[in-house]
């Protein structure tokens, strides 16, 4: 093997790479970028004062920033640094752009739903007997809001809980199969492939499946909480399998070997060594899977239907869940002429859902960190 040392040959090779420009780079100070940033802000403010739409002013200011940065750095440090600075600006811009909808969404949900979500009527009452007349009184005459999401909260807990009861054992045992019993080979390849396929099932198709299954088993049009739980499980199992598999895989092999070498049967090794070691990861993965399905609307709309009152029996009749509740309150207000109370309920339900999801996500992180096995030596 010979190493090319001829400088020209090496230089030619480098210059053949697309995107590499062999211009020299001259020293430049970082202070320039702050000055340019200030300039761009001034441009934006001016445009805004001239009567442009604020969003347009910001976009134009950003473009102005990129142009000025390019010009300034090109003259002081060369074109390569200029391109580098423009790329940096674009990457930062993408990040800020993505924050805009998130902040706007959270802000809207909090502002619109914040007042209603803490009201005892919303948390403690169902929609039984509430009609457009009450909403009319609330909006027009300032009467207190009547009718809430108590039944939907209970329904969400029941249906999601049932879904977790179905999917956690199946998911975790499938992960055990994939990691402990058949780590390689055609069967596990097939199962992994099927889990991938399952991940891609659109949520509404899962709902249609539950509906069709129930139609065959119990007669067409049967809608109840169990059907919803089955639909959610179809969506949840794949997440549980993937998260659990990852967690079981990182359990060190030495632990298994040590246990087996002591004569412990394989199943006890799994139950007493592998699972406890991975417990925090498993719990966090399961929490994330629950967070993923708790806000599902479409499958429940199709498989569970919509109930106005409290129904705690998942085997009988339609139930309500927070997401479906929000959807119905938002799109089909009780009183078309006096929409505000219904919209308030919808936003409150949305806020509650977002809060639940955030808490679930945070606790998943907390579980993963706080109960992780100690790795010190």
């Amino acid at each position: 093997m010979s190493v090319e040392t001829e400088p020209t040959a090496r230089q030619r090779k480098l210059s053949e790479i697309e995107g590499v420009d062999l211009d020299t780079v001259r020293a430049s100070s970082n202070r320039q970028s702050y000055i340019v940033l200030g300039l761009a802000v001034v441009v934006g403010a001016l445009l805004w004062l001239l009567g442009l739409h604020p969003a347009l002013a910001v976009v134009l200011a950003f473009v102005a920033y990129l142009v000025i940065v390019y010009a300034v750095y090109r003259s002081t440090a060369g074109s390569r640094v200029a391109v580098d600075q423009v790329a940096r600006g674009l990457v930062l811009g993408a990040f800020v752009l993505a924050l805009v909808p998130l902040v706007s969404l959270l802000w809207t949900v909090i502002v619109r739903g914040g007042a209603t979500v803490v009201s005892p009527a919303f948390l403690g009452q169902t929609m039984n007997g509430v009609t457009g007349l009450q909403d009319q009184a609330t909006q027009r005459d300032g009467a207190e809001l009547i009718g809430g999401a108590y039944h939907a909260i209970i329904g969400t807990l029941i249906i999601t809980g049932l879904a977790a009861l179905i999917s956690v054992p199946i998911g975790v045992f499938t992960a055990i199969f994939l990691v402990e019993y058949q780590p390689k080979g055609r069967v596990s390849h097939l199962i992994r492939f099927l889990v991938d396929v399952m991940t891609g099932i659109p949520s509404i198709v899962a709902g249609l499946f539950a509906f069709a299954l129930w139609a065959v088993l119990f007669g067409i049009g049967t809608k109840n909480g169990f059907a919803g739980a089955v639909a959610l499980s179809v969506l949840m199992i794949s997440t549980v399998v993937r998260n659990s598999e990852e967690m079981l895989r990182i359990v060190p092999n030495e632990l298994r070997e040590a246990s087996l070498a002591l004569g412990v049967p394989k199943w006890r090794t799994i139950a007493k060594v592998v699972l406890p070691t991975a417990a925090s990861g498993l719990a966090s993965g399961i929490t994330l899977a629950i967070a993923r399905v708790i806000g599902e609307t479409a499958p429940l709309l199709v498989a569970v239907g919509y109930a106005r009152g409290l129904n705690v029996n998942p085997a009988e009749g339609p139930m309500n869940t927070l997401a479906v509740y929000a959807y119905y309150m938002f799109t089909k207000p009780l009183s078309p002429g006096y929409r505000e109370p219904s919209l308030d309920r919808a936003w409150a339900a949305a806020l509650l859902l977002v809060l639940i999801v955030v808490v679930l996500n945070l606790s998943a992180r907390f579980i993963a960190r706080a109960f992780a096995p100690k790795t010190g030596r």
Partner: protein
Amino acid sequence: MSAPPAASERPPAPAKPPRRPGDVVFSGLSTASAFSILLILAGVAIFLISKALPVFGADPAEVTGGEGFLSYVWPLVFGTLVASLIAMLVATPVAVGIALFVSHYAPKRLGTAVGFVIDLLAAVPSVVFGMWGFQVFAPKLVPLFGWLEEHLGFLPFFESASRTGRTLLTASLVLAVMILPIVTSVSREVFLQTPRLHEEAALALGATQWEMIRTAVLPFGRPGVIGGTMLGLGRALGETMAVAIILSPGVFTWNLIDTGNTTVPAEIALNFPEAAGLRLSELIAAGLVLFGITLAVNLAARAVVERRAEFSGAN
């Protein structure tokens, strides 16, 4: 130390003297679980097909639209594809930007925080995105649509502007926001896996940071980005509630900034609660078509991502 819940649920062991009963139960349970996935998927296909069959044998005049199932479903499929493709085109560059920001520009702590925020975006329920899109985002887009109509009205896409903003383009942009997290997280993952030596080699040769990214990070991460984008496409294709709430549905039109068009999942969600008889089969058949499309897209995405895993020197 507590035993995990799954282990305590095992049924009584069958008598098989030569092997330890616990082992038989445990391996039996896990094998059964693994194969139940096969069963579930087969069930999804079988039950959907069985409930969808009536529509294929039905008199074409009885199907909605009066011209058979195919002419009923193609505008829906087309609307779904257009909305998802726009979402993908908008989301991908932004997602790659964020992924680069997290992996190569931001300090590590900030990067982790941003990762969490993006995950949060993924967890927001779609019905909330729909409500936000309807009430906040759509009205904000109305001036933009007016501008597009005025200046680009000669294009068929921007012929006439909606006054409510509840259009296919609005829905597509909200879909773009919704698929940002998945594209970002897949891209971030591959960018972080770029071999350290490649990056350092580029920097040592005097490359600026951007040149290093262009020559070392992006080529390495390209299959991952493509795979992530297609996973996002699969998500967008199946996304229901946001489109159902935002879009004011109608017949198929090329015009993206006026009411009209609809997507398969939105059509199902909007009509299913009141459907009966043949209409049910119609909607289930439409769901089957959607399932087929997302399946194809997801498998293609997996294939691309896996090919990268095989060839990369990182593992």
